[in-house]
C-alpha cells in the first residue's frame, strides 16, 4: 500500500474531520480570549477538566448531554478563575496560565483517582453515535465526510460562522476586538475592558471544556490521563496560523486534524517501518514548521498579553 492510497478514501477524510473538531472548539476558545487581549495558557487544563467532568457526569447519570453541559460549566468556572487572576489582579498571563493548567491537571488526575480508583480496566461509556444529516449526507464523498458526523460536530460547524459574524458584524464583537487592540481607546468609547475580558475568558473556558468533552464523549468513549496531551497547546499555535480569524482558524484546525489522521493511518498501515512515536511527533513538528512559514504575516491583537489598568491612561 503506498502512502497516497492511505489518504485516498472517504474514511480518511471523515477521520480527519473527527480529529479536527476538538482542535476547532479549542482554537475558537483561544481565539475568543486572545481577541480580547488575553493569552489563555490555561486552555490545556480547561480541556482536561472538561474531559473529566464530561466523562464523570456521563458515566454517573447515563446522559451524554448532561456530560456536555458539565464540561462547559467546569470550563466556564476555570475561565472565571483565570479572569480574576489575569484581568482583575493583572497577573502575568503566561505564568498564570501555566499555573492554571498545572493546577487543573493535578486536580483532574487527583479527582479521577478519587472517583474511579485504580482499576486496571479503565471505565468506559457508550459515546455519541454519528447522525447522518438527511439529504446532505447523500452528496457523494462530501456527504459521508462532513455530514455523517456527531451532533457536536454540527455544533462546531455552526459555531465558526457564528463567531465570525459576532466578531465582524455586531457592535459587541467590535467592542471585543477594540479591547484586544487598544483597551484605553475602548474605555474612552464607553466600553468596560475589564468586563469584556472577563466575559471573553468565561466563554473561552466553556468552549475549551466542550473541546475536552468531545474527546471522550464522541471520539474515544473513555477517559485516559493522556487524553488531551498537548492538544490545548496546539490550539494556541492554530490561532496564530489562522491569524486570529475564525474561518482561517477553522481551516487550520481541519488541516491539523488531517495531519493527525494521517499519522494514525501511517502507524496502523505498517507501510513505513519506523517507531510509531515519530508519527506522534508529526502534528507538533508540522505546527512548528507552519508557524515558521507563517511568521511574517502573523500579527496578533496589539494589546495581547498586556494587562489593562483603568488608572493608567
Amino acid at each position, binding site marked *: 500500500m503506498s502512502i497516497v492510497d492511505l489518504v485516498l478514501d472517504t474514511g480518511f477524510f471523515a477521520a480527519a474531520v473527527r480529529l479536527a473538531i476538538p482542535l476547532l472548539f479549542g482554537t475558537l476558545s483561544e481565539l475568543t480570549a486572545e481577541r480580547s487581549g488575553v493569552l489563555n495558557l490555561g486552555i490545556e487544563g480547561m480541556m482536561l477538566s472538561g474531559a473529566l467532568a464530561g466523562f464523570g457526569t456521563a458515566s454517573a447519570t447515563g446522559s451524554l448531554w448532561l456530560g456536555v453541559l458539565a464540561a462547559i460549566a467546569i470550563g466556564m468556572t476555570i475561565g472565571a478563575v483565570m479572569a480574576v487572576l489575569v484581568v482583575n489582579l493583572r497577573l502575568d498571563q503566561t505564568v498564570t496560565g501555566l499555573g492554571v493548567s*498545572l493546577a487543573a491537571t493535578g486536580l483532574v488526575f487527583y479527582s479521577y483517582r478519587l472517583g474511579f480508583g485504580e482499576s486496571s480496566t479503565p471505565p468506559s461509556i457508550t459515546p455519541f453515535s454519528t447522525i447522518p444529516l438527511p439529504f446532505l449526507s447523500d452528496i457523494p464523498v462530501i456527504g459521508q465526510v462532513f455530514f455523517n458526523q456527531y451532533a457536536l460536530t454540527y455544533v462546531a460547524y455552526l459555531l465558526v460562522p457564528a463567531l465570525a459574524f459576532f466578531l465582524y458584524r455586531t457592535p459587541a464583537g467590535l467592542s471585543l476586538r477594540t479591547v484586544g487592540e487598544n483597551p484605553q481607546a475602548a474605555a474612552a468609547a464607553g466600553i468596560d475592558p475589564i468586563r469584556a475580558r472577563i466575559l471573553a475568558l468565561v466563554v473561552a473556558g466553556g468552549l475549551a471544556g466542550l473541546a475536552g468533552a468531545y474527546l471522550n464523549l464522541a471520539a474515544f468513549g473513555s477517559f485516559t490521563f493522556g487524553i488531551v496531551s498537548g492538544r490545548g497547546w496546539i490550539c494556541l*499555535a492554530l490561532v496564530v496560523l489562522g491569524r486570529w480569524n475564525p474561518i482561517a482558524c477553522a481551516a487550520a484546525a481541519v488541516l491539523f486534524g488531517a495531519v493527525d489522521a494521517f499519522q494514525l493511518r501511517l502507524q496502523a498501515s505498517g507501510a513505513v517501518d519506523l517507531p510509531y512515536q515519530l508519527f506522534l*511527533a508529526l502534528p507538533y513538528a508540522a505546527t512548528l514548521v507552519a508557524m515558521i512559514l507563517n511568521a511574517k504575516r502573523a500579527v496578533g491583537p496589539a494589546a495581547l498579553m498586556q494587562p489593562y489598568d483603568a488608572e493608567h491612561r
Partner: protein
Amino acid sequence: MRLVARPNRNSPLRDAMMPVAAVAASLLICAVLILLAGANPLTAFGIMAKAAFWGKFALTETLARAAPLILSGLAALVALRTRFWNIGGEGQIIVGAMAAAWVGALTSLPTPLLIPFMLIGAALAGAALAAVPASLKTRLGVDEVVSTLMLNFIVMYLMQALLSGPWKDPVTGWTNSPSILRAAEFPVFWKGTRLHLGVLVAFLAVGVVGVIMKRTTLGLSMKIVGENPRAARHAGLDVTRVTLAAALLSGALAGLAGAGEIGGIQFQVIASISSGYGYAGIVVAMLARLSAAGIIPAALFIAAITTGADEMSRQTGVPFFIADAMQGICLIAVLVAMTLSRYQIRFRTSPERRATP
C-alpha cells in the same frame, strides 16, 4: 474590584514573607483535598514531612531530587528575567539527558574525561535546543511560548522513538537506553546515598547564576531587556544578542539537570527521565521571587512535596497526584501574593463607571 497601590511599596520584610504566605495558602487548599480523600490532613502532612526530611536517607533523597529542580529553576529564572518565555525546560532537560547518556557510554573516550564531557555535552545540547526558539523569535518573530511548548513534545516523542528503536535493548526488548560506563557514573559524596556530583553542580550553579545576574554586564542587560526592551534598545543594548545569551544560558542549565539525572540517578535514558521537571522549574523560579538565593529553599520545598507525597500516598491512600496539584496551586498562590504585597484590593465599582451616565 480594583487594585490600589500600597503606600509603602518597598517593604523587604513583606516581600520575604510573601512566598511563605503563598505556601501556607496552598497547604490549606491541599488540606481540603486530603479531607475529601478521607484522610486527616495533619497526619498526611506529618507523614510527608517525615518522609522528606527525617533521617539520612530521606534528607539525601530530597536533596538529590532537588538538584534537577534547582537547575531547572535557575533556567526558568534566567529566561523569565529577560522575558524570554522559555517553557521548553522539559525538552531541554531531555536533550541534556540524551547527550549525557550518549557521551557516558562512549568507550573511545579517556576515562577521566567522561564526566566533564557528559556535563559539557548536556549543557551544549540544552543550549542548542533553546537556541532554536530564541533565534526564531529574534529573526522571524515566532512566539516562543508556542514554539518551546511544541519542541517539548517533539523532543519527548523523538526520545521515545529512539528508546523503542535504535536504543532498544536487543536481548530484553526493554525501552531504556544502554547504561553508561561505570567510570561515567557520578561520584557520590556520602556512601549509601544518592548525594551525587550533580547535586554539587546544582548548588554551584546557584552561585554562578547569582553572580551573573547581580555582578555582570550581561546580567544587568538581561534585567533591563526583561523590564523594558524599548528602553534597552534606546540605551544601546543589543536586545537580540542579550535574548540569545539568556536563552543559551537557560537551555544549558536545563541540560545540566538532565546530565545529573543520567550520571547520578538513572545511569540510562528512561522514558520518564524528566517527569515534569521543566514545568516545575517555573514554579521554583516564581517561589524564589526570581532571585538566585531563593531557588534553593524553593526547590527543596517542591522536592519535599514529591518525595513526601510518594510515602503519604502509600500510607493513607490519598492519590499521589496531590503533589502535581500542589505545584500548580503554589504557582498561582505566589503570583497572587506577589501582587498583594504591592497592591490592596478594593471592592467597589471603578471610577469611570460612575462617571458614565
